[in-house]
Every structure is written in C-alpha cells, then in structure tokens.
C-alpha cells in the first residue's frame, strides 16, 4: 500500500486527527445522551409524546413534554422544503440551461451571496419585514376567505408564525439545495439531453426528462435541506413566535426544538428536570438530523454510481 517513507509519515500524522475528530463526535453523542438521561428516567418516553412545559421549584411537581416542539419542528421544516424545492429546481434550470452566461453569472453570484449570508440577518429581516408583510398580504386574506380550512383557521396576530418561519427558512436554504441540484445536474451524461432533443422534444420537455433522471438526487437534496432547516436555530427563534402550542394552523406561533432550547436554556438551569429535558430534545434533533443527512448522502452516492455505468 505505502510507496515511501513520507507517505507513511503522512498516514501517521493524519490518523490521530481523524481518530480525534471521530472521538469528538462520539463524546458529543455520549454527553448529550448522558445529560438527557435524568429526564428519560423521570418521565420515560412520555417526554416525547406529551406536550407540557411546567417548571416548578419542587422537582416532584415539574412536568415536561416535547411533543409540540418536535411536531412543529417537523412541520416547519417540511413546509420550508416544499417552498424551497420548486424554487431550487427553477433556479437550477434557469442558471444552467435557460439564461445566457452574461445574465446567468450575476444571478449565480447573488444566490451564492444569499447562501452564505449570516442566518441572524435572515432572522431579523424575517421577523421585522417579512412577517408583517405576510400577515397583511397573505395571512389575513387567506383567513378571511378560506378560514374554514384548518390550515388557515386561526387569526394571525403578530405575523410571527410557523408560516413566516418556514418561508424565511426556505429563502435561507434555497441556495444550498440549488447548489446540490446544480452539482447533480452536471453529472448527468449528455447523451440523455441529446436523445431528448433528437426525438424532437421542446426545451421544457427535455428539462422534464433531465429532472426525471435527477429524481433520486432531488429527493436527496430535499432530505439534506430538511436536515438543515430542522437544525436551524437563529432564523426560527426570531420568526416562529415562540409559544408552547400544538397546532396545525399555519398562522399560529409555535416552538421548534432549537428555538425552545435557545429560549429556555438560561432559565432551565434553575430547575432539576428542565435542562435534561432540553438535552432530550437535542438528542431527538441530533438523531433525526443525522438520519436525514445520512439517507440523503446514501442516495447521492448510489445515484452517482448508477449514472456512470
């Protein structure tokens, strides 16, 4: 395997680094698990299936359940993927296929700028500009005319709501999903496009065929985007309204797990079971997020191997 002494040197200097990084990951998982243990011991799995946040000075009377934040986390993240995915597909095709280079390059630059923009800026913009705008232009009309649908049944108050959070999240994660799709699009062998055009397909029909080939990659990109949206703290904490409520209505405020942690961590230190419960939330978050990224990455690698046969 080794060609020379210096290669061996390289191997032995990289080995501890990789082992160290792996070690940090294991210690991290262990710490989160051990810190959350008291909460699981006290409440059992009820901590994940009930919904309550009632701290008390008397540990016997404390009661917590994370069902609402977990459900809202999933709800908000899925919604944000549903918004960002169509935009990302449009952007991918527009940037690669439709626009000439002198128009595509600036647009690509702008999406890259948006991809790296500090999330706190998105959060502040979402809470002060987007949320009031959505409340007046979207939520109120929807509630007035379509209020009988459960999704729109609640009266929008400040605009800080699950809808505002998921749209801000979608704006922030679209560049990431787009970058993934662009990467995948370039991997498609050109024979498919040539085939489509030689059969007389219009541009749009050819794009549809290309996207059909890319489908596993699109699913993977959605999973990775979902994982990113799920773990996003800053944007959500500033826009979701922060209230312990289990609701299907888009205009209701809610807590997601990260925003619950961000808001309650300081005071949770005062109570015996509050902090372990937050760690239980973190553990759930970690597991879902890792599972989604893992599934996404597996899909990407599997697709890459199949497409290059």
């Amino acid at each position, binding site marked *: 395997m080794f060609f020379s*002494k*210096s*290669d061996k040197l*390289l*191997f032995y*200097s*990289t*080995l501890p*680094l*990789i082992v*160290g*990084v*792996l070690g940090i*990951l294991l*210690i991290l998982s262990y710490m*989160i698990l051990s*810190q959350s243990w008291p909460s699981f011991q006290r409440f059992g799995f009820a901590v994940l299936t009930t919904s309550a946040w009632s701290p008390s000075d008397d540990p016997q009377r404390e009661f917590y359940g994370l069902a609402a934040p977990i459900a809202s986390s999933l709800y908000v993240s899925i919604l944000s993927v549903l918004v960002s995915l169509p935009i990302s597909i*449009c*952007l991918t095709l*527009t940037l690669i296929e439709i626009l000439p280079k002198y128009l595509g390059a600036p*647009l690509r630059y*702008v*999406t*890259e*700028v948006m991809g*790296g*923009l*500090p*999330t*706190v*800026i*998105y*959060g*502040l*913009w979402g*809470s*002060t*500009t987007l949320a009031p705008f959505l409340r007046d232009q979207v939520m109120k009309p929807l509630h007035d005319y379509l209020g009988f649908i459960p999704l729109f049944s609640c009266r929008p108050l400040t605009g800080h709501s699950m809808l505002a959070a998921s749209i801000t999240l979608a*704006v922030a994660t679209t560049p990431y999903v787009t970058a993934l799709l662009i990467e995948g699009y370039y991997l498609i062998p050109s024979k498919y496009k040539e085939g489509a055009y030689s059969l007389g397909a*219009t541009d*749009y*029909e050819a794009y549809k065929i290309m996207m059909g080939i890319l489908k596993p990659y699109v699913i993977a990109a959605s999973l990775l985007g979902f994982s990113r949206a*799920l*773990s996003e*703290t*800053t944007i959500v*904490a*500033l826009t979701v309204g922060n209230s312990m409520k289990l609701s299907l209505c888009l205009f209701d405020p809610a807590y997601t797990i*990260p925003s619950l*942690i961000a808001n309650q*961590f300081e005071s949770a230190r005062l109570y015996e079971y509050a902090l372990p419960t*937050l*760690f239980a939330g*973190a553990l759930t978050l*970690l597991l879902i*997020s*890792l599972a989604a*990224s*893992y599934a996404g*990455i597996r899909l990407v690698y599997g697709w890459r191997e199949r497409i290059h046969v």
Partner: protein
Amino acid sequence: MYRSMTSRKVRNYIMVIVMVAVSFLYVTPLISIIYTAVERGGAVLVETGLKFLTDLPPTPLSTSVGGIAPALIGSLLASALAILITTPIAFLMAFYVTEFPRHSLSRVCEVVVRAFSGVPSIVVSMFIYSTVVMSMGTQSLLAGSLALAIVTLPYTYVYFTSAFRSIPESLREAAMSLGMNRVRALIHVYVGVLRRSLLTGLLMSYVRAFGDTAPLLFTMGFLMNAVFAGVLQQSNAVPLMIFVYALSPYENFHRVAWGATLVLLIIYLALFTVSRVLVRGVKL
C-alpha cells in the same frame, strides 16, 4: 397522448418564462434585506458615526445607542481562533483523502466529516457548554471558538478537498516524474499552484465562523462592560448581539441590532467579494 406542435410550443414558452420569473423573484429577499439594513441600520450609524464601532453597548434605559465594540472584538478574535484550530486539521485530512481516495482511512474520514455537518449547531453549543464551560466554570471566548471550530470544520474540509481535487493530473505526474514524493509535491508544487483557492477556502471559513450565532449561544457569554476581558473570560459576538437584542423588548436595543446588522452585512459582502476575486484569478 398526442399534443399538437403549437400547444407544445406555447407550453414550452410559458414554462420557461415561469422558471426565469421564479428565479429572478427569488432575488427580491436579498434586495429587501439590503434595503432594510441600510435604511434602519444606516440611521443608527449616521447618528453615532465611528463611535458605534468603539463604544460599549447601552443599558436598557440609556438614551444613547452606544456601540458594539466588545462584540466586534469578540467576533474577530473567536473566528480567527476557530480557523486557527480547524485549518491544519482540515488541510491534512483533505490532502490525505484526495491522495488516497480508496484507502479505508479516507472512507472513515469522509463519513465522519459528513456526520459532523449533520450535527445541529445548537447541539454543538450545548455540548461545549456541558464540557468546556462546566469545567472552566465560566463561559469564555475560548469555549465560543471551540464551538465555532466544530461547526466550521466540515466547511473548511469541503473547500480544501475541492481545491486539492482541482490539481490537473499533468501537474501531479510532472511532480512525481521529478522524483518527488507526495509531501514534497504538496510543499513545492501544490501549495504554490493552489494558493489562491486555499486562501479562498480559508477566507470563506472565516466568514462562516464570523456570521454564525447558534454555536455561541451558551458558550461565549455576553460581555457588555468592557471591550475585551481575556481569552478565558466572557466575550461577545456581533451575530449573538443582534440575536439577543432583536428578541429583547427595548426599542433602543432594536436600533443597536440594526446598526450591528448593517456592519455585519458590510463585513460579509466585503469578504465574500474578495474571496470571489481571488477565485477568478485561478486558471489551471
């Protein structure tokens, strides 16, 4: 199903126009963000001038806006420290993986780094809190930097691997044919060829660390009464300050948050543009 040529063409035009329209519509949030930041943050900056960068933050009841000096210093130092920790690790790992892509250690490395990027940054913050902060007894700039380092490591790694992958095969062969081994080729050939892309990766990692909030939430502290208290003491960060002040009920704090947002936006756009200009110079 048969469709006439005209209807297919009409459909084609409509869909292409819709896709271009959606793409350009997507840019409007950025315009709105810049507009709002300049409008609301600009007012604060014009009022205070350069003192906004050098003064201490206000108390809730004070009438003046004060400044963001502790946050600015904290951010600059903590991101630099984080990059200092991640760069050598990411550099060696990226080089190893591109040189021996099929080696089992490389596979492990890929998996571990991917897993790292799947760890939510708030979980990293809680982890550093329950280890470093708990054992030191106080939140500190060092703890904040460590959290930032864990969060930025996957990014730095990805930037470096894509830099190493861009080495043309001909250059690699030329270096080998001169009798160089991998380490010598790295030092004498690759680093020279890749200096701009490596620098870009470094800069982008720095920008990423500079703008990140969640890893700092429970680790950095919230220093307000001094500009800098030491590496092992509480500090502050620009994004953290924006986040905390934006959630507070005081009007005065909101104004500080907007001023800080404009400062952060300017720093981000400047560093991003510099890194793009650097990349443009790379021709392999």
